[in-house]
């Protein structure tokens, strides 16, 4: 992909190996991310549209795009859209993340 116009996520036609067809279980947090997007994108809210989600994923940067799992990409993109629209702020999110981290550390002690 030496052509700078060929974006990293645009994989059509590139060598990729065999398709892994088996079903796999989703973790609870992955199901929650899926549900979150459905609610954020419904007719009442229209806060995160499919194309906004995709654009956010395509803008992650090549390293993050390659290393994140499917739903990690989703939640990263959803977060970016919600920050951009002022639905949440970085400060609120940062404080909440610290709170959850502390709670998890407490539970794992």
């Amino acid at each position, binding site marked *: 992909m030496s052509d700078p*116009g*060929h974006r990293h996520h*645009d994989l*059509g*036609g590139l060598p990729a190996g065999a398709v892994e067809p088996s079903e796999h279980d989703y973790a609870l947090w992955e199901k929650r991310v899926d549900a979150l997007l459905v609610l954020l994108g419904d007719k009442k809210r229209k806060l995160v*549209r*499919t194309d*906004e989600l995709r654009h956010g994923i395509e803008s992650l940067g090549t390293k993050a795009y390659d290393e994140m799992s499917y739903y990690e990409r989703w939640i990263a993109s959803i977060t970016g*859209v919600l920050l*951009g629209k002022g639905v949440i702020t970085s400060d609120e999110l940062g404080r909440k993340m610290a709170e959850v981290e502390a709670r998890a550390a407490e539970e794992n002690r």
Partner: protein
Amino acid sequence: MSARFAPGDAVRVRWAHPPGHLRTPYYVRGKNGVIERICGAFANPEELAFGRDGLPTRPLYRVRFDQRTLWPDYAGREGDSVEVEIFEHWLEPGT
């Protein structure tokens, strides 16, 4: 909806690589194909991606490409094709 192209028309996908959210795959850009059908008119995803309404709607076409047009070393059967849905503003008259 006023559509610029009709089924059977030869079209060429524009060779363009602007930044933003594009639904036209890289591998069909600059390639010749044929209109297989008009899918309808839809909001423009390039605008929806940035939180705008994407209106007015734009005609979307299903375009058929010969596999060998896309992949010169294609090893499948003669006449194999692939169909890709492409918005009108990515198409120009083909050869």
